[in-house]
C-alpha cells in the first residue's frame, strides 16, 4: 500500500527525534486531530441518524428523532419483509451481483494475462480499444440495450442485467488487471513452463496466486458498482418479483415518504453490505483505488 511505504520512508528519516519537533508536534498535531475528528463526526452522523431511527417506530421518530431509541423496535424490518418483499429484492441483488462479479473476474483475468504477458498480433490495439471504452457513459447504452433485450425477450430475465453489468465492468477490470499483471516477473512464468507445461498451467500456478490481491480488489470494486446501480437494473428487471435492491428502494420512496423510520430501515438494509465490504476489505480497496498514483 502506497501510504504504508511512505510511513516506512518517514520512519527511516527518523522524523520525531529533534526536540524542536516535539513542541511543533503538539501545537500542529492536536488541532489537526480535532479538525479530522469534526469531519469524521459529520461523515458518520448522518449514517448514525439513519441506523438509530431505523430502530424507532413512527410516533417515537416524531417525538424523539435525535436520541437513542427507547427500546429496540424491529417492526420496520418486519413490515419491509412482509409487505415490501425486501428479502426477495436482497436475494435478487445477491444473485445478480454474485454471478456478474464472477463472470467479470473470469473473463477479465484470463484476457489480462494474455494482454500483459503474451506477445500476439493486435495486442496493443486491443488494449487501447478497451481503455477507450472507459470514456463511454452508460447512458449511451441505455436505449439500445433496452431495445436489444426486448427483442431477445430478456426483459425481466436476470441474464439481461448480468450481461450488461459484466460488459460495463470489463473495460475497467481488464485495464486494471493488465496493469497489475505486468508487474509479475516473466521469469516466474517461464520457470513454471520448464517441463513444457501449458500456458494455462503457468496462469493457474503463477499468475493467479501472485495476482490474487489485485483480483480481490477488482471483485470488491465491481461488487460496489453493481450493488449500487439504479437505472439499468430498474429498466431491465421491472417486475416486482425480479426487482433488485437499489431500484426497490428508489421506487419505495413514493409510498414511504410519510413513514421516515420505515424508509430509514430500507436504506440501512441497502448500505450495510457495502459498508461491511469496506471495513473488511479496506486494505484492498485503498490499494486498488490509488494504484497508479503511488510509487
Amino acid at each position: 500500500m502506497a501510504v504504508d511505504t511512505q510511513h516506512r520512508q518517514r520512519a527511516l528519516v527518523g522524523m520525531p527525534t529533534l526536540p524542536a519537533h516535539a513542541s511543533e508536534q503538539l501545537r500542529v498535531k492536536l488541532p489537526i486531530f480535532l479538525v479530522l475528528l469534526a469531519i469524521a463526526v459529520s461523515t458518520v452522523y448522518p449514517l448514525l441518524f439513519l441506523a438509530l431511527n431505523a430502530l424507532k417506530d413512527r410516533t417515537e421518530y416524531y417525538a424523539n428523532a435525535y436520541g437513542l431509541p427507547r427500546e429496540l423496535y424491529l417492526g420496520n424490518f418486519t413490515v419491509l419483509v412482509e409487505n415490501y418483499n425486501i428479502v426477495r429484492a436482497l436475494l435478487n441483488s445477491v444473485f445478480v451481483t454474485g454471478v456478474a462479479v464472477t463472470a467479470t473476474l473470469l473473463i477479465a483475468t484470463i484476457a489480462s494475462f494474455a494482454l500483459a504477458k503474451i506477445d500476439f498480433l493486435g495486442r496493443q490495439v486491443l488494449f487501447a480499444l478497451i481503455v477507450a471504452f472507459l470514456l463511454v457513459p452508460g447512458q449511451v447504452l441505455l436505449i439500445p440495450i433496452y431495445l436489444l433485450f426486448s427483442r431477445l425477450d430478456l426483459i425481466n430475465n436476470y441474464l439481461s442485467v448480468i450481461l450488461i453489468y459484466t460488459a460495463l465492468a470489463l473495460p475497467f477490470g481488464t485495464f486494471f488487471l493488465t496493469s497489475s499483471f505486468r508487474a509479475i516477473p516473466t521469469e516466474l512464468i517461464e520457470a513454471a513452463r520448464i517441463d513444457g507445461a501449458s500456458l494455462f498451467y503457468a496462469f493457474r500456478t503463477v499468475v493467479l496466486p501472485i495476482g490474487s490481491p489485485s483480483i480481490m480488489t477488482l471483485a470488491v470494486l465491481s461488487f460496489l458498482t453493481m450493488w449500487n446501480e439504479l437505472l439499468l437494473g430498474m429498466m431491465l428487471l421491472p417486475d416486482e418479483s425480479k426487482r433488485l435492491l437499489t431500484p426497490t428502494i428508489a421506487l419505495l420512496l413514493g409510498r414511504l415518504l410519510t413513514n421516515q423510520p420505515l424508509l430509514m430501515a430500507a436504506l440501512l438494509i441497502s448500505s450495510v453490505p457495502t459498508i461491511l465490504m469496506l471495513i473488511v476489505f479496506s486494505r484492498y480497496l485503498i490499494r486498488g483505488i490509488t494504484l497508479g498514483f503511488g510509487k
Partner: protein
Amino acid sequence: MLTARRQDRAFAYLAVLPACLVLAALLVYPIVYSVILSFSRLHGLSTELVGLANYTGLLWDEDFWRVLLNNFIFLISVPLILLASLICAVLIYEQVWGWQVFRVIFFVPSVISSVVIGLLFRNFFAFDGPVNQLLGSFGMPPVDWMSTGSTAIAVILLALVWSSFGYGMLILLAGMAAIDPHVYEAARLDGASWGQRVRDITLPLIAKPMRFLSIINVIYTFTSLFGFIFVMTSGGPGYETTTVDYFIYLKAFVGFDLGAGAALAVMLFLIVLLLTIVQFRIFAVDEGTQ
C-alpha cells in the same frame, strides 16, 4: 513479455476471445445502434431515418438548454469536491493519532449508493426535517428546500460533495505518498511552518492527481447524477434540477421518444469528450508555464 511460440499465440487469442465477444455484443453494437437510432424515428417495430430531425428538435427545445445549463451549474461541485478532498488528504498526511481509522471513515460515503445518499439528504432537508428544526431552534423560519430550484440544487450539490470527497482524498494521498519526505525535512530545518510546507511543497507536487480528479469529477457530473435526481427531486420543480442523464430517461421511457433520447445520449457523449479534451488542453498549458 514471453517469447511466444505458435501455440502460445493461439492460447492468447483464445484468452481474449470471451472479453472481445462480450464487448462487441454489448458495448460496440449498442453504441453503433445508438448513433443510428439518433437519426431515426421509431414506429412500433419499424424505424424510419429522419436525418438530423432529432438533433434539431432538441436544439429548438427550450427545456434542453435549461437542462444543459443545470449540468453546468452542477459543475460547481468539482472545485468543492477538490477542496474537501485536499483538506482531508493534507490533514491525514500528518499521520496524527488514528489517521488510518479516519481514512476509512472518510471513504464510507463513497461506497454507499447515490439512491441511499439522495434519500438521506432529502430527509435531512425535508420541510419537517432536522435542518429546519435546527434553524427553528435559532428562531429562523423553515425553508422549503426541495421545492425551489436554487435550494434544491444546493442540497444536491452538498450530497454530491459528501459522497465524493473520500475518493478524492485517497487519490491525493497516493500522490502525496510519492513525495520524497526529505524535501519536508529540509524545509522544516530551514524553519518553514506547517502551512508554508503545505502551500509550497505539497500543492505543486500533487498537481497531477488534482488534474485527474478534476477530469473524473467533470465526467461524473455529466453522467452519474441520475440516482440523486431520481430520488431527490425527480428533476423538478419543472425542469429546474433535471440533468442531461435524467433527461435521456424522461425522453426515452416517460415520453417514449427513443430517437430523441438516443440523440441526447450521443450529444452527452460528445459533451463529455469535449470537456475532457478542453481540460487536457488547459492542464497542458499549465504544465508549459511551470
